[in-house]
């Protein structure tokens, strides 16, 4: 009964999980690490905002339009608010919006894309058309259209709207990935051994899409932060809220640019650019890690040569 075949164990350096290999590659990629560290700094700032921010961000207790000083690292607004405190609290809001919208839109994208890709048929056609439509709709215009009807939104609501309008690209990516995975035999095999659709989606397919999910999360986070800033800047957000976008809105409202109050509008803009770059770096790195063809080899020896 026992077939005599000895297993020659394939040498692996350590019993590292496959996932950890990707993670390890991520951690060894300088671009990814730079991005990750920068992003984590902002995350930490967001988490500890209440401890970091020296003052109440809304309180108008200081002299207006002070340039940066030890007391006010980023100066004050024209109504005497401490911009550094606003910036720190804004970091929190913007990060929550970014990460939250990323999670929501990725989840929607995953459900729509994977379900359609897996299920096929009419359900897929409908879902696919839907995401194609959302995909080609100009995002910001759609957001503005929606905002024109529900003004005075909070950043969180904006994040939600951004997420609910911005899932299409992910859905498309997930769908095509799901379609190629769904054709793989292990899905059929799982079904044969009794797995249901949900199990197949979450236990069989999801782990095979981690890099896509990660990259979609990153992409969506970047998009959400930018979109939220844009909306807030246009005034489509409760101006009493505290986000990078609203700081820019008030700065613009208060003539910061013209008045030479660079300390007022520079920090949020630069912060968005830095967070955005950090996300883009991570995304770029993930691409390279998961797609060996994109990797650039650093050869120690000449390509041809080889005459030992």
């Amino acid at each position, binding site marked *: 009964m026992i077939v005599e*075949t*000895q297993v*020659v164990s394939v040498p692996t350096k350590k019993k590292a999980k496959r996932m950890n290999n990707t993670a390890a590659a991520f951690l060894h990629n300088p671009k990814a690490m730079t991005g990750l560290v920068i992003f984590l700094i902002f995350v930490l700032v967001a988490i500890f905002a209440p401890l970091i921010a020296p003052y109440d961000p809304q309180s108008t207790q200081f002299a207006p339009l002070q340039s940066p000083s030890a007391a006010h690292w980023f100066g004050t607004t024209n109504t005497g608010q401490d911009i550094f405190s606003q910036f720190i609290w804004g970091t929190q809001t913007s990060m929550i919006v970014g990460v939250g919208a990323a999670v929501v839109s990725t989840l929607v994208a995953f459900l729509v894309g994977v379900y359609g890709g897996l299920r096929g048929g009419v359900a897929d056609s409908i879902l696919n058309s839907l995401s194609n439509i959302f995909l080609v709709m100009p995002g910001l215009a759609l957001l503005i259209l929606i905002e024109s009807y529900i003004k005075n939104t909070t950043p969180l609501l904006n994040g939600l709207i951004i997420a609910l309008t911005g899932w299409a690209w992910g859905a498309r990516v997930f769908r095509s990935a799901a379609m190629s995975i769904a054709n793989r035999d292990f899905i059929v095999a799982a079904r044969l051994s009794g797995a249901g659709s949900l199990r197949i989606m979450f236990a069989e397919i999801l782990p095979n899409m981690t890099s896509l999910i990660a990259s979609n999360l990153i992409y969506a986070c970047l998009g959400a932060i930018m979109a939220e800033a844009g909306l807030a800047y246009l005034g489509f957000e409760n101006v009493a809220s505290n986000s990078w976008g609203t700081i820019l809105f008030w700065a613009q409202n208060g003539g910061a640019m013209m008045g030479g109050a660079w300390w007022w509008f520079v920090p949020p803009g630069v912060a968005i650019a830095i967070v955005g770059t950090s996300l883009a770096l991570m995304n770029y790195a993930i691409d390279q890690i998961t797609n060996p063809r994109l990797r650039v080899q650093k050869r120690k*020896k*000449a390509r*041809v*040569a*080889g*005459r*030992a």
Partner: protein
Amino acid sequence: MSDRKPVLEIEDLSVAYQTANGLVNAVNDVNLKVYPEEIVGLVGESGSGKSTMAYAIMRLLKGDAFVTKGHIKVMGEDLYALSPKELRKFRWNKISMVFQSAMSALNPVMTVQTQIVDTLTSHRPEMSKAEAIKRAGELLDVVRIDRKHLNSYPHELSGGMRQRVVIAIAIALSPGFVIMDEPTTALDVVVQRSILDQIREIQQVEKFAVLFISHDFSLVAELASQVAIMYAGRIVELTKSGTLRLGERHHPYTEGLLRAIPHLTADEVVIEGIPGTPPNLVNLPSGCAFYPRCPLATDECRKARPNLYQTDNAIIECHLFKGDREVQHV
């Protein structure tokens, strides 16, 4: 074997891939000669280094692969000594290659005609467009594809036809030597057979030498005059194809392979697999690479790499053949 000058001479060739886990020694100290108008088969399991060798011969190794050792001469010319310009000229005029998978070897957005004509005009700039098209049609005739397919895109052809187009491109400039890297593996048995027949036919007309790579023993045995058997980056045996059957003297690995195939017509069918799996090419076993799977392995096999021994029909790299004449090269 033959006094004529070989079209291919490989001497002590080693090729390695640089990977995160270390150097993958895909080809190790390989020696091989191919003579004009000869068909030599190269057989081995997946991953034994066949394609790597083929790419090395063509000087097409990319990225992380490099020749660590040895020389390759094609028609007396060292490809690695050529300038890029010379190389571009030399390739395809003298030596060409049929790739493993025809689907991916053809550019999906160009018609068959363009791809053939490109080949011609790249090497014969003096050739007019009309001439090139005419020649393309002739080439399709040679591989027996209707000329109307000149304007077809690859995806409009069947697998067999695509492979024929690739063959047509390979012989477009009448090279003296063609490497065929598993040209038929992805195809149906019947199609496979008809393409093999065609290759043989064309080869007899055009008289080029062929290095035919495959992992299908019986196929190669029918086509080639000599068969090189590759294991773990080494050619462990070079044998006359007619003797590829049980009962002749062969390398234990060759014997294992012969035993592993069920025979279609034999009265009594007993098959036996080779236990275990091919070695890891990053750290090869010290002695004979095959010893962990060899049923006849001795202590010596583990320690020392065997020499080459000439038997009546073959040159074999195995300690078991110590009694035979030792040779230096294949």
